[in-house]
């Protein structure tokens, strides 16, 4: 990356921060919520892309790591005096009943805990390949959820936790997303990133070249879990409440769609994917509302239609547009300049590369 480009990137981030400030102060809470959700989903999409897109390990455990992060935030940020109210069915375990943390600390703690769990689970599971890994990680995220449901004195079980101090400030969430983005971008462009990609392309060749499969897969898995935990914590704080049903394994599919749409192995793609999926789902909402067209009530439009369209789009995307928006390339300044010079040949070239 040239010096000029680094400078440009910093300016772009600063400009986007300006936009975030504008959204925070000038826009209504509906827009703010959508923007916040886009940003949080971007963090989790990035984290998922690290294992699935860059290291090529198909993991479906994101919901479980999010649950860990969200619950650490849920358990430790609720003000102590409000806790008896929340844990009205079974009193909280006295060991943790009086520990209260500020949000930022709880977010980091949640991320670290998720990374620790990822290390423990990754050691046996990451030896598996392809579909086996997918099902094992999915199963693990279900185990976490079932444990949370049953451990009532720690997590309040199915009753969920309420009164998490609300965080609805676009600026903070933007900063968290920016930090995630920069960290993962630097990681991908370091020697670790090259090792990750080597594993993705060919495990056996990578190992022969002296790349430690165990160490690199585990490292990526832990970093991914850390950011998924932080993202989960932000998700919990954004909603102000968490309960185990939030973290059904189907939640992971949202992020799968984001990274598939954005391009597996493209971090700017994940950002775009998060925005398109979140905003797109809101946009598709018109399909759920009854539609009067030329005085006729079209019976096709009723609740549920939106989700049919949404899943059909996902299918179409996988079938006809397998590489997503970005493929494995990035939205870099070089590419943007090339695009500005000659948009048609740019796409032609990219098509050929695929």
């Amino acid at each position, binding site marked *: 990356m040239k010096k000029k480009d680094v400078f440009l990137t910093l300016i772009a981030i600063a400009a986007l921060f300006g936009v975030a400030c504008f959204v925070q102060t000038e826009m209504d809470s509906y827009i703010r919520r959508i923007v916040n959700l886009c940003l949080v989903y971007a963090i989790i999409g990035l984290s998922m892309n690290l294992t*699935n897109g860059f290291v*090529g390990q*198909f993991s479906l455990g994101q919901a479980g790591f999010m649950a860990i992060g969200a619950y650490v935030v849920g358990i430790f940020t609720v003000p102590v005096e409000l806790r008896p109210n929340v844990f009205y069915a079974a009193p909280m375990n006295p060991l943790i009943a009086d520990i209260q943390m500020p949000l930022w600390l709880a977010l980091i703690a949640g991320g670290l805990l998720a990374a620790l769990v990822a290390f423990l689970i990754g050691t*046996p*599971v990451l*030896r*598996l*390949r*392809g*579909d*086996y890994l*997918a*099902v*094992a990680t*999915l*199963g*693990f995220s*279900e*185990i976490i959820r*079932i*444990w949370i*449901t*049953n451990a009532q004195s720690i997590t309040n079980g199915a009753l969920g936790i309420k009164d998490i101090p609300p965080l609805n400030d676009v600026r903070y969430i933007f900063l968290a997303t920016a930090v995630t983005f920069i960290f993962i971008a630097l990681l991908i462009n370091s020697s670790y990133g090259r090792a990750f990609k080597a594993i993705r392309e060919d*495990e*056996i060749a990578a190992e022969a070249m002296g790349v430690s499969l165990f160490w690199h897969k585990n490292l990526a898995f832990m970093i991914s879990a850390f950011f998924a935990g932080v993202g989960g914590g932000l998700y919990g704080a954004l909603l102000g409440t968490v309960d185990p049903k939030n973290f059904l394994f*189907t939640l992971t*599919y949202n992020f*799968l769609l984001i990274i*598939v749409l954005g391009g*597996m192995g493209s971090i700017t793609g994940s950002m775009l994917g998060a925005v398109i999926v979140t905003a797109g789902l809101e946009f598709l909402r018109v399909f759920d509302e009854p539609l009067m067209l030329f005085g006729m009530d079209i019976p096709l439009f*009723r609740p*549920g*239609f939106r*989700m*049919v369209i*949404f*899943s*059909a789009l*996902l*299918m179409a995307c*996988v*079938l*006809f547009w*397998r590489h997503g928006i970005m493929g494995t390339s990035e939205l870099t300044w070089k590419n943007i300049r090339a695009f500005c010079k000659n948009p048609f040949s740019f796409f032609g070239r990219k098509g050929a590369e695929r």
Partner: protein
Amino acid sequence: MEFFQAIANMSGDSLAQHLANGISLGSLYALIAIGYTMVYGILLMINFAHGDIVMMACYFAFFGITVFHIPWYITFVGVIIATAILGVVIERTAYRPLRDAPKNSVLISAIGASFLLENLANYLFSGRPMRFPNIELLSQNISIGGIQIQAICLVIPVITIISLVVLLHIVNHTKTGMAMRAVSKDYEIARVMGVDIDKIISITFIIGSSLAAIGAIMWGIRYPGITPMMGVMPGLKCFIAAVIGGIGNIKGAVLGGFILGLGEILIVAFFPQLSGYRDAFAFIVLIVILFYKPTGLLGEKTTEKV
């Protein structure tokens, strides 16, 4: 300690009842797991939509009997045919275009197909549960000694065993079966040797989906609530059963189904306080099995080719 106490306290009747429950559940898992294993054996992909095919088959049966008042024995044949067609349609649209794509793309497509079927069912049939048609002959109660079971629970293991025998015959002693094994061993070479890959895969999907339909009918009679999401958990568990037994291996799928079914029942029988963790059992067994024997109990050992 508690474990032995639980056994000591358990009367003979209770234990026999638990075993009967376990065998009935296990054979149901086994029946659906065979479908999974068939598809995996040929295509080397998890057909995530298999559980949702089961769900659709239940709705077909509901519409046939409850809405259109077709006699059940005719409906069931119709359900099997309709489900087989659905399976082939899914294969043609969602999997065939990706035949030469990376495995992860196929996996995502399978997840997408499952998601689409669920949303479609929710949209078309609404989220309210419907009752699977009652067939008095099969749902009546029978009491043998101190054990109470439903007639269907005696039928399911028999059907599972019959399916197993028929399938083993098809795979091992027919020309189609030979072609299936060839495709499963090496896809490219089978193609070069003149095997019509598309046809073999379609046949596999017809067999797998028909088994899903039979499983769905059994499932529906035993647990008669039909909802759009009903296929998700059974789908996952039966897949796990197939993995435990060694995916791709038909006998293994049946073995895995029984291990999972009996295990789920017996863990609640011996440790009643763990009943809330029952659904986690399948996943824990999965991870343990994959750790110690990644190819499953009856799976062949394979080495990754360079």
